[in-house]
């Protein structure tokens, strides 16, 4: 069956609330900030808002249901997307169909998390049943240890080196220096990356994101409403999603995108070469490299060579994670699953400001998330195109 195009529904009002390392505020507080700002930007009142999609790890004991009474809104469409780093694309593709079908007019998609001193350890210890049973008892290294195993296997299979991963991190840091809200403010050289202390061999200090509090949001509506409000907006060319792909792979050397990637480019009507900006999910540089391969920008096993051959900075030939990515901006829980999509919307609507890639019209966004036991289970990808340039 051929999939329906995403005609008539658009993305507006990309909002990133500046992250903070530690906060006393709740996830509710952070989500409210992003939501309010996004509604203002979209010229939508809380009364006009009739759809809400929320992603958060730290809302407990609430679910998004509690947020409706908390914020005083009455949506006729409410979604929870627990897909971690894939939440942005997943939330978008669900909301898009509901708007297209007329089930809802305006959907605010928001992700936000708090970060208190003990938040990270508490989050990890109750992250998933399989992690509790079969990962954390073995050194409690968290995702750093799990991805270290992945990188160890990846490097020994395909020959990527630390320098290759370092180039990804260094390039993102260079991009982040243009982003006033990035948590990391100092330049990073390859020598500094290589000298970074080991966290969980071979994952080193500058391979790791900094857990933060923060929130991100965007608003989806019918195209004619966006036009009427005079908003810059982006159209959705294609999306894919897959959870628990390749369960029989002994180690995760490829993500779920591989299963459906042809469908993505088919639906978009073009190939990877037509992309102006790429936002990958960067919990670790090795996962960025995996996405270069699995999204089709290069062949499997050639990710290292691809990185060596391309300039990943804003002004370079292959702009990648243009706001600095989570590696330089910080990881605000589930908001990390929105970071790339929100930046991509800014890029293709020419509203990215200091991180703007000149002439960016088409962006690819990739999400990856929820490390359950020994691999990231959720993967998603989207191609969006800007209008009102």
């Amino acid at each position, binding site marked *: 069956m051929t999939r329906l195009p995403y005609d008539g529904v658009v993305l507006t009002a990309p909002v990133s609330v500046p992250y903070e390392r530690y906060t006393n505020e709740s996830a509710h507080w952070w989500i409210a900030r992003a939501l309010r700002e996004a509604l203002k930007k979209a010229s939508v009142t809380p009364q006009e808002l009739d759809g809400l999609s929320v992603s958060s790890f730290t809302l407990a004991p609430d679910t998004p249901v509690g947020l409706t009474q908390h914020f005083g809104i009455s949506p006729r469409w409410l979604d929870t997307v627990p897909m971690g780093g894939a939440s942005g694309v997943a939330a978008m593709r669900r909301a898009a169909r509901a708007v297209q079908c007329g089930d809802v007019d305006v959907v605010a998609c928001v992700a936000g998390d708090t970060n208190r001193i003990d938040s*990270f*350890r508490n989050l*990890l*210890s109750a992250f998933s*049943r*399989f992690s*509790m*049973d*079969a*990962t*954390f*008892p*073995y*050194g*409690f*290294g*968290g995702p*750093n*240890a*799990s991805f*270290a*195993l*992945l990188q*160890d*296997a990846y490097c*020994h299979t395909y020959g990527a080196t630390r320098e290759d991963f370092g180039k990804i991190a260094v390039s993102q840091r260079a991009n982040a220096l243009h982003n006033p809200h990035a948590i990391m403010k100092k330049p990073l050289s390859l020598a500094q990356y290589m000298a970074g*202390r*080991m*966290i*969980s*061999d*071979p*994952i080193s200090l500058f391979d790791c994101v900094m857990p933060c509090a923060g929130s991100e949001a965007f608003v989806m509506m019918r195209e004619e409403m966006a036009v009427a409000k005079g908003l810059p907006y982006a159209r959705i060319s294609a999306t894919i999603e897959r959870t628990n792909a390749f*369960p029989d792979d*002994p*180690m995760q050397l490829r993500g779920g995108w591989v299963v459906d990637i042809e469908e993505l480019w088919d639906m978009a009507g073009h190939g990877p070469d037509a992309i102006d900006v790429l936002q990958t999910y960067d919990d670790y540089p090795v996962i960025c490299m995996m996405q270069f391969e699995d999204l089709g920008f290069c062949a499997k096993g050639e990710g290292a060579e691809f990185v060596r051959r391309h300039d990943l900075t804003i002004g370079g030939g292959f702009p990648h994670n243009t706001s600095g990515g989570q590696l330089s901006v910080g990881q605000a829980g589930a908001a990390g699953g929105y970071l790339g999509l929100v930046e991509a919307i800014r890029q293709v609507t020419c509203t990215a400001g200091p991180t703007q890639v000149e002439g960016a019209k088409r962006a690819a966004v990739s999400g990856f998330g929820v490390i359950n*036991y*020994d691999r990231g289970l959720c993967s998603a990808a989207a191609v969006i195109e800007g209008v009102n340039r």
Partner: protein
Amino acid sequence: MTTPLTLPPKKDPQKRTKVPVLPPVARSRAALGLGVMAAQGRFGLQVCSECAAIQYPPRDACVKCMSEDLAWQDVDPTGKVMAETTIRVSPEPYFRERMPWRMGAVQLAVGPTLNCHLHGEIGRGDAVRMALKLDKAGQGVLIALPLKGSDVMQDDPVLRAMSCDPKHRRILISDARAPMALALTQAMLSAGAAHVFLGEPEAWLSWPERAELEGMENVSIMPLDVTDVSSVAKLAAEIGGKVDILINTASYVRVGGIMDNDTSFASNSFEVNALGLMRLAQGFGRAMSGRVQDGINSAAAFVNILSVRALSPDANYGAFGASQAAARSISQSLRAEFQSSGMRMMNVYIGPIEGDAWFQPLPPPKVTPNAIARSVVSGLVDGLEEVTCGDIARDVYARWQADALLLEREMTGGGS
């Protein structure tokens, strides 16, 4: 290569004793099955009864056909290390105190990929033998071991933390007069124990075997009567801080069922076999619990030698069997009470002992004191909780695990 353990220096009396912290404790119900296997020294996983798929991590429905009919079975432990990492940062206090910590991904020959601890002598690319061991939280965890390790492989710190190895440790055997006491003493010393204390009840009643224990190097005979609370307290006050492994060998046996046996004998059985254990735990338990992470010669385990008839009594030993069941129940409660410190409670189940007058007319097979001693040592080295020694104990325990009610009828109704 494993660095051999060296004899620990004397403890600095000015320093606070390290308080035991535990690795992660929480597990789902299905994952507790790993602990059941580890406690017995078995390597087993869930196997689907409908499609034979082997499951890991433990779960509630088959990963291939979604059947809920999953049974725990022994499984081939061979595998290959696919990847390894050295963790250097952790928010969890237990691992934080023991950085760096190696962790690996091993693919079993039978399929599943396991995240596991790594023995120091193996790494990426090596063929390994997987084992399930009880960690300090008392949970069953996976460790990849070399197919053929060095002579000192037990000294690997990760492995030693999951073991109650007598090497360099000080042992207290509660009753020097027990049939296996001498063999146990010799076995402990051969296994590298630093010292063996032997508790001697009723020194006013001489016994010829004492001569052989007197004058043995690194052996001390101390007064101890498990039926006398002041005796236990007195010895605990003197050596309680130096006991790393306590082996309770005190046992009172008299022949007789329930209707024909004297309650006076039964009372003695309970006093020695059940309440004796309780007094030892009260006297020595807290001090030992406080020292479970006190260096190389840390406190490690309580050991009971129980008749396998604790599980289902022999009609000719009714009161004795009841006292063994009571002792077993007490040991289970103690196991729970020790959980917060990481101290092991190991039960070694035996059948009738060769040479024991109270089982003299019974036919073979019987278990020898040397066999018991060997089982205690290997059980401690492997860090087990449930050990069976000898043919009878192995047989009865297996039948009890399979169907306890059927075992009861076999014992009385004579299945042929």
